[in-house]
């Protein structure tokens, strides 16, 4: 079987439109995920089990189950119920795009929360004590020192998370979205040239990942010029 890359050229514009959908999915869920993650991370750090219990369970569920299951639960699972279909959230839930965003956001926020938590807890105890002896309140301590400090630590792990999210977004294709993978699969349904089209799609993903890695390296370099290297263990996603 010879490969025929002319189909790639022919369908390239459609692959690009899939790429755009992928970008929208990733950017939106990463941004929303970060916003959701911060309070979860802070609650998770609390020594009070009443406060940290919920976030713990949330993080555990979303990190412990496949994203594919999570998407199906949101998309097919929720719509099974009449109540949901008649409620005010249905206009959102009926859209596969928003279902994907919801699943991705919840998923990435669980991972991001762990990254934030790791970063905050990686700050050497002495630096925290330096805040305390100065008479800072908890709020001042977090706002002025710990969160800005954590930002620098978080970078490598967070860059990783974005790439993992980019790749995980391929699962949107399973709920009718024409993201890059979905578009590739649709094209293949017509042309029966899986290898050519998948390779092309893979190459596009690769280019985006490499761009993300590159950007993060740059930012990191700037950050760590002064910071030295303090990094945390990265929880990976699946």
């Amino acid at each position: 079987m010879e490969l025929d890359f002319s189909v790639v050229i022919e369908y390239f514009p459609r692959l690009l439109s899939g790429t755009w959908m992928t970008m929208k999915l990733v950017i939106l869920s990463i941004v929303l995920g970060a916003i959701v993650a911060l309070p979860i991370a802070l609650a998770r750090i609390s020594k009070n089990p009443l406060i940290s219990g919920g976030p713990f369970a949330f993080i555990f569920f979303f990190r412990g189950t496949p994203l594919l299951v999570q998407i199906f639960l949101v998309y097919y699972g929720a719509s099974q119920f009449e109540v949901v279909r008649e409620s005010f959230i249905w206009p959102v839930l009926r859209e596969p795009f928003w279902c994907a965003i919801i699943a991705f956001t919840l998923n990435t926020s669980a991972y991001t929360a762990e990254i934030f938590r790791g970063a905050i807890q990686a700050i050497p105890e002495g630096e925290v004590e330096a805040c305390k002896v100065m008479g800072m309140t908890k709020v001042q301590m977090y706002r002025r020192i710990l969160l800005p400090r954590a930002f620098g630590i978080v970078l490598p792990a967070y860059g990783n998370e974005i790439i993992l999210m980019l790749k995980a977004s391929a699962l949107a294709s399973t709920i009718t979205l024409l993201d890059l993978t979905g578009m590739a699969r649709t094209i293949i349904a017509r042309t029966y040239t899986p290898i050519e089209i998948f390779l092309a799609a893979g190459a596009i993903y690769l280019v985006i990942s490499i761009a993300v890695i590159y950007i993060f390296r740059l930012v990191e370099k700037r950050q760590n010029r002064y910071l030295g290297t303090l990094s945390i263990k990265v929880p990976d996603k699946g």
Partner: protein
Amino acid sequence: MLDLHGFGDQLLQGASITIQLALSSLAVGLILGLLGASAKLSNIKPLQWIANFYTTIIRGVPELLTVLIIYFGATTVLMSIASVFGYDEYIEIGPFAAGVTALGLTFGAYATEVFRGALQAIPKGQHEAAIVLGMHPRRKFFRIILPQVWRVALPGIGNLFLVLLKDTALVSVVGLEDIMRKANVAVSNTKEPFLFYLVAAFMYLALTIVSMAVVHYLEKRASRGLTRG
């Protein structure tokens, strides 16, 4: 076990497939990871290039796509290689083999980085202490370095295994009868997606918990004597 409209047994069968898939991929991935790390740390440029190429590609392409490419592509590639040698029969790459290949490759790429970090974390003095005894390099690697690498790498590898466990769900897309696929079949028969996907989720969660316990046990064993007692 719940009856689940008669699909309970099938889901359990799916779980068994999922576990087999995960363990087989783990074995493949660990070997690839060690080879990859050794290649990256070797002084041989072409080996470094190959290893870098491998990890970059695999880590930049969605796992779903890797599974699809291997599934549809590997057979073609294998057969065209075989036909060069005059062998023209069909070479079977079933969903299981494709899954193991794709997930093993993925695991291996990430494990390469974990092992590389661990190898580099072994102080130079550990090597030197073996060298000055006149120890053979291979013996040094297996008796002195590897046991320590293993300890350092374990948390990272454990993490990767949890990822792998969840990635097995992707192989359902090419028709492997794992938990996810069985859940899909159950959904199409019963029209109860919420129930079955939730059950699937908890099955994965259970597998995750068991894996975490195993990893924890291994970590404890491996760090025997390494923390001040």
